[in-house]
């Protein structure tokens, strides 16, 4: 079913909106959740919560891209649940590794002029991503948005794992430099 038709189901408050969403994007959402949580039961719960959030948000919200709209919700919900894992000392999966890698992008304090809000930070990230060439950008997003392993990324892009790691390392250095130039404190 086309996204437009699924959205029409949401707008007419038809319960089949959920089953059609699950049919088309269930696997996509489940994979995002599972990359973060590495726990099938919790991932399924996050995906079910995603449907509930979508049901409550549409209408009035009218997503331009249903897939990424759902993906964002799943990612946020899964990261929130991941925080509870952390408090329970259950650090697993790709998130701690991704966090460790992203720590390299944090600008040094002495260059900082002022703290910025998350919204501004997102705008800066948008600018940074827009300036990256296509392939490194996709690799960066696959690693830090979708939390795929470098091995998975290498397989999907048909390149070596070493090349993925080099690409990510370069992107992180560029991001650090960019944030420092913008005077960002996190």
């Amino acid at each position, binding site marked *: 079913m086309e996204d437009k038709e699924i959205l029409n189901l949401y*707008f007419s408050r038809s319960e089949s909106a959920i089953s059609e969403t699950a049919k088309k994007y269930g696997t996509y959402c489940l994979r995002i959740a599972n990359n973060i949580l590495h726990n099938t039961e919790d991932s399924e719960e996050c995906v079910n919560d995603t449907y509930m959030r979508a049901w409550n948000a549409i209408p009035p919200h009218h997503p331009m891209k249903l897939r990424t709209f759902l993906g*964002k919700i799943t990612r946020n919900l899964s990261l929130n649940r991941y925080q509870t894992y952390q408090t329970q000392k259950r650090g697993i999966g790709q998130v701690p590794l991704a966090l460790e890698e992203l720590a390299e992008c944090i600008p040094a304090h002495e260059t900082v002029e002022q703290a910025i809000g998350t919204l501004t*930070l997102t705008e800066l990230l948008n600018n940074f991503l827009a300036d990256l060439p296509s392939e490194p950008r996709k690799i960066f997003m696959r690693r830090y*948005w979708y939390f795929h392993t470098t091995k998975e990324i290498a*397989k*999907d892009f048909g390149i070596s794992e070493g090349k993925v790691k080099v690409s990510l390392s370069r992107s992180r250095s560029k991001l650090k430099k960019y944030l420092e130039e913008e005077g960002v404190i996190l």
Partner: protein
Amino acid sequence: MKTNRLLEALGDVDERFIEEATPSKNKTVYPWGILLALASSICLILSVLDMLNQTDLPIEPPTSATVENEQVSLEPITFASPKINGSEHGVTIEAIDIAQQNFDETPVPTFFIYKNKCYVYFSTVFSTKENQIHLYDHNTFLEQYVGKSKKVDINTFKKRPYTELTGTITREFFTVKGIDSTFMLCSRSKADENYIDLWLNSSDISLKKGADLFENLLHLNDNCKQVTYLPNHAHYQWEISKINQELPDVHVLLYQDYAVVSRFLEGLNEGTFIYPQDVAQNEASIIEGNKTYAIIIQLTNDLCIPLTIYEDGYVRLEGFREFSNLLVKVDQMVVQELIEVLNQKDNFAATNSN
């Protein structure tokens, strides 16, 4: 913590970057895959050409729809939704223009016109039938006989649509006890007398205050018999549970809580109808962290009115066609008072049926 912020900010980046990196879109395509795809495309083209040579395929779609089938279709009505306009003065749902509808598709929409209002099928409820969630009694549900609709051919209808009680179906219609007839009418199901079909007029209507719908048409405050809370459920999940007959626990509000319910309903009447696009500007607050509470207000005639209450004071009437696209902004204090009651589980007598 700093990296968490980076991760959080990354979550909201432009959707085109997310879409571009979607896993399924970036699989490496191997040459043999392309060859296979090419080969199957060629086979498909050849077989279509072969079919065209051998058979006389119908090219033109049927020119007119007929109304042979008397069954009420449970599929979504093929009516285009009427346009909804909103401003600071409220919301207007435009009239359905029958003459402009395209009826060259099946199923033909099941609708009828009564006193110049267009009623479309929206739900079936069960009456005096065992093992169903809600039982409706003809004696408490049906009120006054309205008349028998005259079924006319769709093309005749388009030429002269606004005649008294005419439609694409033949039914005997009744008013629903306690509900304004300009809002809802009902008919006994043709297939099974145990079922009642509900017909809703959800167009050609202006709504400013919540009272325009909840008080003047539904008479919610006067007719409220019971309020049921569905903890940790949205209404669609409840509907699915009903179909699967796996009913979760629900909580029926106790007598002493009805003062709060009454204040909530008064607040709902005082609330303002919001044009969905206006609310979309605040979409972030609705999507993110805005907890929702699903309640069902059961009326004295047993009709169930499902409401979704958003923590920040928006209320949505679920499952009532175009009305479900609208939100009512209610005083947050009034909503909070009800939410507090809903959160106090001890206040409820748990039950899994009503």
